[in-house]
């Protein structure tokens, strides 16, 4: 491909960049919108725009190698007889068998279990591999109810009622026919090979008052044993969190617009929802006003990549975080070893997002038996466990530097922002000032 960047006589339009022109041409050729996986790729204010204020004279740090910084979190203390205890506040987000191979689901379970945290089912139900390898498994209760059955519900360590996700708040799911194998079709009670539409609304309740009754039903069926989460995509977060608490949630799961998906319209991924960082303070405010912050736990997902992101999310008010895209990368997604095959698919290592096609060279977002076999669940699980440990260690490092003996002791006061947008969204001062844009005095 010719490199035009060094030719000063060529000026690329800021409005009609090459990517925009390509998309117009693609739309004109096909007459159909673009579908892809991954999450929002546009640059939005994020945790990179925040910095910690480490201890110095006015704060007292903890010694890195001797003094404990606790990471254990208990989820579901509000109503459940058996709250879920996780050893690190980094959990694995819901991803379906169907979107992912059975090997990938098993690897997620293995990695999460090794470090004492939870993993989560997805649309399509619970697989035996996943349950078998996950010591702590959250069972998603979705609008489609694909594969939903009370036996699996009773096997779960927590139940997550999914109202939406950050990549597509207000939208349902889709699993294209090329990924509907015999097993996926059987689990979802649908013909093999058809495009599956997952509903965007639950079939038997329509509002928060109904949802409260639905949650009561789930509690009755499980004899009030396990926590019940409510997952929302980040949009009108302040109100959604208040309604979730009113409906009876033990835990609120908040997924920002950077959160991933297996397949959705590009226009949806990039243009609906708000950034994760902007949503957390709204959620924390709602919980605080209702007097349930830390009693109703808040799990945040969408763009969590490193221990700094973990620590910053917690400092802003989260109790734990969930990772999806990063977990898949840890398993082997987008690895350079498959670069040639990614290129044959019209992509490249580091760019591959066509999860909907089912041709993942890494054996992760596919149902192709040959490709799936490429992923060794034991080795991939070990990589995920390593990564989860690094996230935890990094978060502890930052917390100790701020003088905190538990990650939950981090607070907004420990943070400043690098730019006005981040300061306004995170509700922390612009670095070097005491100015919080939008704060009412």
């Amino acid at each position, binding site marked *: 491909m010719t490199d035009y960047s060094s030719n000063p006589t060529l000026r690329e339009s800021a409005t009609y960049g090459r990517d925009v022109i390509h998309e117009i041409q693609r739309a004109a050729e096909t007459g159909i919108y673009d579908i892809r996986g991954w999450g929002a790729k546009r640059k939005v204010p994020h945790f990179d725009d925040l910095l910690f204020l480490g201890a110095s004279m006015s704060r007292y740090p903890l010694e890195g190698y001797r003094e404990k910084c606790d990471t254990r979190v208990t989820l579901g203390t509000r109503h459940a007889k058996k709250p879920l205890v996780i050893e690190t506040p980094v959990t694995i987000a819901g991803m379906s068998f169907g979107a992912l191979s059975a090997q990938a689901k098993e690897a997620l379970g293995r990695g999460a279990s090794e470090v004492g945290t939870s993993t989560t089912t997805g649309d399509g139900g619970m697989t035996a591999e996943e349950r078998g390898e996950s010591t702590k498994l959250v069972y998603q209760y979705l609008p489609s109810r694909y594969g939903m059955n009370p036996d699996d519900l009773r096997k779960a360590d927590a139940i997550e009622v999914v109202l939406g996700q950050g990549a597509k708040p207000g939208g349902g799911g889709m699993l294209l026919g090329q990924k509907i194998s015999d097993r996926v079709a059987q689990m979802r009670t649908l013909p093999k090979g*058809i495009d599956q539409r997952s509903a965007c609304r639950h079939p*038997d309740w329509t509002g928060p008052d109904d949802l409260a009754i639905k949650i009561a039903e789930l509690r009755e069926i499980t004899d009030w044993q396990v926590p019940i989460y409510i997952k929302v995509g980040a949009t009108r977060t302040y109100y959604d969190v208040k309604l979730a608490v009113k409906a009876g949630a033990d835990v609120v799961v908040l997924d920002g617009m950077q959160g991933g998906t297996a397949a959705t319209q590009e226009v949806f991924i990039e243009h609906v929802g708000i950034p994760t960082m902007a949503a957390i303070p709204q959620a924390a405010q709602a919980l605080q006003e209702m007097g349930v912050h830390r009693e109703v736990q808040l799990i945040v997902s969408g763009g969590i990549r490193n221990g700094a992101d973990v620590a910053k999310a917690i400092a802003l008010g989260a109790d734990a975080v969930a990772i999806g895209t990063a977990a898949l990368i840890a398993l082997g997604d987008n690895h350079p070893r498959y670069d040639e095959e990614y290129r044959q698919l019209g992509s490249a290592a580091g760019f591959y997002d066509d999860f909907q096609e089912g041709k993942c060279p890494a054996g992760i977002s596919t149902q192709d038996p040959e490709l799936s076999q490429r992923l060794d669940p034991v080795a991939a699980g070990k990589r995920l466990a390593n990564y989860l440990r690094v996230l935890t260690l990094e978060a502890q490092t930052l917390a100790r530097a701020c003088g905190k003996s538990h990650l939950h002791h981090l607070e907004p006061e420990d943070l400043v922002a690098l730019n006005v947008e981040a300061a306004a969204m995170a509700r922390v001062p612009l670095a070097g000032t005491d100015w919080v844009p939008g704060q009412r005095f």
Partner: protein
Amino acid sequence: MMMKTVDLAEQSLRALNQSLHDGEMLSDIREWRVTNTDGAHNIACGLNDDISVDIDGHAGYYCAGMNQRASVTVHGNVGVGVAENMMSGTVRVTGDASQSAGATAHGGLLVIEGNAAARCGISMKGVDIVVKGNTGPMSAFMGQAGRLVVCGDAGDALGDSIYEARLYVKGRVGTLGADCIEKPMRAEHQEELAALLEQAGIDEDPADFRRYGSARELYHFKVDNASAY
């Protein structure tokens, strides 16, 4: 065989459901009667034993939700989502049912002797539903598998976006939903329907019914179908 009556004016719903999940108790008591229901929600949900439960009075939302194996009869009307996600067993309602009756249910038999409101059998995944009266709009929406029998009239948008569920209607159909069409009523369908009606204890002639199902035109997203969505 022992029988036990639970008066919901005297005992909590939680205690009732806990008892109905208690295998040791159920080994002795196989027949249950629930009284003074006062429209309570979530009565007899999550059952997983071959017991029979008679509910005297109206029930609220999600009565007999996720039923497995049990035989539940409601002598009255029910609220939203009766027998939702039922896996097996039988649920019978002598009165009317509110919205989303039998929603997403995978198996078993749901009989509604009165009328069923909107979205009856929404996303049904293998259940058999027999409604002696009428059904509301959007019934069998996205119905994946199983059979819905309507002995009265069916409301608008019947079987919208239907997959492989089979629908039998005796009366008038308001409108058919996207991708739902009338199909020939062959001998095997007459036999299937006759068996269903007999199982439901409803005296109707299968010859009076018409069959509806999926045209299977929306199984793969094609831009030419955009106007159907």
